[in-house]
Structures are given as structure tokens and as C-alpha cells.
């Protein structure tokens, strides 16, 4: 079946503009995760959803970042008033149930965000 898809694959935006990044998880996966990967850094956890709820928003770096998930499927990560330090690859992943079992996460190809 289809894997996790993300759009756009690349996004160049001017400082101060808002951007929306989209993630389509694998069908049937109830858990969805957003990570950020900066050059030379590991993966930074941002937020996760179980269904449409986001129990853990602790990884969001500032109040300029927000995310939502609708219908237990598609998720959108929004960054308002982008800054140059927001430039990174944003990765989305999905998995079966979150809090039980050792279910692996399946990752999308990422969105490379460049803020000029």
C-alpha cells in the first residue's frame, strides 16, 4: 500500500511569511508524529497525534508552531511568521496505536523548508 506522503517536498519562503506543511499518513495508522531535522542534528520531536487529539505538544519550539489533524488522517503543521532558524527538513511519521506495543513508525520523505 501507499506510504506516508508529505507535501510540498520543498518550500522556500520569505522571513515573516506563514507556511503550511501537509502529511498524509498510512491508512489505518492512528498515531501521527511530526519531527524536525536540522543540518547536522538528529531528529527533534515536535508533536504527536492519537486520532485527532494531540496529547503531547511539548516539542513545539514556540507558539508560532501549531498542528492539527482532521478525520484521524491528514495533518497540517503551520509555522507562522517564519524565521531563518525554522529552516530544516520537517518529517512526518505514522504508526499503529501509540501507547501500547512496540509499533515502529513509518516516515514520509519530508518537506525541506528554507526561509530566506
Amino acid at each position, binding site marked *: 500500500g501507499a506510504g506516508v506522503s508529505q507535501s510540498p517536498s520543498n518550500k522556500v519562503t520569505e522571513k515573516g511569511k506563514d507556511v503550511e506543511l501537509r502529511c498524509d499518513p498510512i491508512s489505518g495508522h492512528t498515531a501521527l508524529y511530526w519531527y524536525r531535522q536540522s543540518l547536522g542534528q538528529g531528529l527533534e*520531536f515536535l508533536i504527536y497525534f492519537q486520532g485527532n487529539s494531540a496529547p*503531547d505538544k511539548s516539542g513545539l519550539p514556540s507558539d508560532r508552531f501549531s498542528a492539527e489533524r482532521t478525520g484521524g488522517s491528514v495533518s497540517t503543521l503551520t509555522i507562522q511568521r517564519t524565521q531563518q532558524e525554522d529552516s530544516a527538513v520537517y518529517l512526518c*511519521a505514522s504508526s499503529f496505536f501509540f501507547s501500547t506495543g512496540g509499533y515502529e513508525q513509518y516516515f514520509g520523505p519530508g518537506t525541506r523548508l528554507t526561509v530566506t
Partner: protein
Amino acid sequence: AQSVAQPEDQVNVAEGNPLTVKCTYSVSGNPYLFWYVQYPNRGLQFLLKYITGDNLVKGSYGFEAEFNKSQTSFHLKKPSALVSDSALYFCAVRENSGYSTLTFGKGTMLLVSP
């Protein structure tokens, strides 16, 4: 708090030789452990995981990893490296009870020379 350490930023090995990519972890309880691989300009691909049972776990592309509870390690191994194995490898951990997200290490770049 849980954490993962990948002590080597880069591992160099000649094709045909065995390879090891090191990972140590810290969790309050028992761990779920994972290895992922990232090829250039690609997302992460799942390689293998330890949940319970045998300490030696076999995964994709001939990779295996050994869970060592006393040393809190989960090193990735392959008996004979291929040039195509060159990529960025991430180890990840989460506690196997209650609520916790996956914590990833910073990654180890594996370079296999012909």
C-alpha cells in the same frame, strides 16, 4: 527521562568487512529499541526493532542488532558491508510502558569504501 547516545559521528569500513554502529540508551523501565536508516534526501526507513525475547534481532538488508541489558546497548551489526549500505543510521528508544515518545540519537554516518 529517556535518552540515546550514538558515540560515533561517522564509521568507515571497507566493503566486505564487518560493520558495527554503536548505540547506548537510558530509560526508567524496560526499553523498546529501534534502528532506522536514512539515505540522502530520503525519509527514515525502519530496519529492525527489539521488543522482547531473543536478544539478537535480525532485520532488513542483512542487518542485525544485539540487545544487551547489562550494558544498556543495542549495537547495529552486519557481517559483510556493501557500498550501498553507506547512509545515516539512527538508533531510537522508548520505554515499554505508559506514555513516552520515541527518542532518537543524533545519527551515525556509515561510509563503506569499495
